[in-house]
């Protein structure tokens, strides 16, 4: 397109603007756009980090389709994501409904539930590992012994890995969702409830027809960000379930998920091409989920 203004004048007029954009754009291009393209390329190669990458076409993806460890990681992640998001969202909403007041008992309860959000996440993982210590010295087994049970090898029992991971996620995350829901509840005009009460609507009907519909944007946000975060789980698996330098996923891979498997392939086996293919599978999953997030569409309308 021919520009009506000569380039030199445009540069003088907008030079400062571009100069102000430059630091962000340079870093953005260098550490996001270029690596993104590069990882797509690497996913079509075998690359060990030392020898030059060798192009192998779709081989990595073909291998992934047959990789039983990867299938295991996918099904574990799916189960974990669904369970932790559903439970987490329901409990967040319940907590917000129960403790949305301004009095000090409610504020203390909110602080208690929010505390994990501001505690070092590695510290929480180490805490859980110690709670689920396999012998009688741990908190978990002490409680089991109160009910006359035998010591459980929590983290070494394959069937317990996903439930424990879900527990840690819900325990740590519901306070954050609660804060969002409390804000959402505060934004609902009080008059709606008064009108409903005059019409004789029951508490349940008020909740069903006023509270829930008006909280929908909050619910969408809590669910979508929860899904995206849950798909990326790493340190819960790495810290709590790792049994040795060459095992990230716990006993029989019972806690193996997408990102821990990516780390395992990329940085303990140095199959960087294969790990890039895993990274692109993760990318596609998250990309689709993000499209659901309508905030993007709204933002573009405003510009």
């Amino acid at each position, binding site marked *: 397109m021919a520009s009506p203004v000569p380039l030199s004048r445009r540069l003088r007029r907008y030079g400062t603007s571009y100069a102000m954009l430059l630091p962000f754009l340079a870093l953005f291009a260098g550490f996001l756009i270029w690596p993104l393209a590069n*990882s797509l390329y690497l996913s079509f190669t075998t690359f060990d980090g030392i020898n030059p990458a060798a192009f192998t076409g779709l081989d990595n993806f073909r291998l992934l389709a047959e990789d039983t460890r990867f299938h295991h990681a996918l099904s574990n992640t799916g189960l974990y994501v669904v369970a932790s998001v559903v439970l987490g969202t329901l409990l967040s909403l319940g907590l917000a409904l129960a403790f949305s007041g301004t009095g000090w008992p409610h504020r203390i309860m909110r602080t208690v539930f929010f505390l994990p959000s501001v505690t070092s996440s590695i510290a929480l993982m180490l805490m859980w590992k110690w709670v689920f210590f396999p012998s009688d010295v741990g908190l978990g087994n002490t409680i089991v012994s109160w009910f006359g049970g035998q010591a459980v090898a929590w983290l070494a029992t394959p069937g317990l890995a996903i439930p424990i991971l879900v527990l840690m996620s819900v325990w740590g995350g519901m306070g954050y969702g609660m*804060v969002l829901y409390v804000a959402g509840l505060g934004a609902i005009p009080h008059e709606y409830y008064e009108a409903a009460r005059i019409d004789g609507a029951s508490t349940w009907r008020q909740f069903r027809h006023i509270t829930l519909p008006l909280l929908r944007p909050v619910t969408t946000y809590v669910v979508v960000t929860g899904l995206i975060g849950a798909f990326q789980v790493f340190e819960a698996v790495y810290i709590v379930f790792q049994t040795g330098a060459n095992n990230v996923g716990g006993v029989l891979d019972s806690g193996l998920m997408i990102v821990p498997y990516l780390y395992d392939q990329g940085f303990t086996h140095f199959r960087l091409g294969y790990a890039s293919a895993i990274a692109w599978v993760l*990318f596609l999953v*998250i990309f689709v989920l993000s499209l659901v997030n309508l905030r993007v569409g709204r933002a573009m309308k405003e510009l």
Partner: protein
Amino acid sequence: MAVAPMDTVAPVRRPPRRAETGAGRRSRINGHLLRLPFYLLALTMVAPFYWLLITVFKPPSELARTPPSFVPRSPTFANFYDPGWTAQGVNPGHLQGIFQRFQVDFGFWRFLFNSLLITTTITAGSLLICSLAAYVIAKHDIRGRRVIFLMIIASMMVPWQTTLIPNYVIMRNLGWLDSYAAYIVPALAKAFVLFFLVQFLQSLPNELIQAARVDGAGEWRIWWRIVLPLLRPALAAMSIFIVLAEWNNFLWPLIIVQSDEMANLPVALARLNSYFAGPDHQGAIMAGGLLASVPTIVFFLVFQRYFTRGIALSGLKG
């Protein structure tokens, strides 16, 4: 640790309580009954924290005892620093405290310093860089800004782990592995921060900026003197997210850090976790976890008001 009650964003207004009638009291009791499951849930929140705290103050011998004590019988600070432990001989009953565990200068303090340095630098740097770019995108009528903004929004849908491997290779080729630069430089351009600041700026009127331009102020001056002060609530909200994310950052440091000296707190604690598994070592490990949590909890207590407001702002209006 005493925790002050949390401030609400927009508290739910309640009608003034009527004089206590029979029905009123009954409904209040009903309310407590309905909340009972949540009070029990609160117990499960407190119990692991309490377990962590008492572990920190138990001597190693008490940690290996069954059944465990729920009030430390002989409380001690030995898990932080045990004067009875010596590097040479075997001292039964004595283990290294957290400050004696790492063979680096300044021991555990080094990781606290690393984490503080990295977190503050990234927070300040990314807020400056992103606010500059946000000002241009929101308020300057330049060519290509729509395309640039669209690309930045699209990039928010990319999980950062997708770029993990190429970025690792870039760090290696630049010779930045095991340096502060590898922590800080790739973390500065944050698409979400830019997106949020652009939206915030778009909701502000142009008059102040126009007036400053008429008075002959340059664009850099306008950014520093007018835009940044206007952005203050948005910057406060974003700094909370950045501080928490960078303080807890683990996977990226795990990959770029090789030496003991350059570890941040999460990596140092993870290493401790993989070297020592016995119950008697848990006191020092939990002491490390406690020390790693104190800065963010203090940060939360000081800026409580901004926390809830910031979370709500980014979640509801963003």
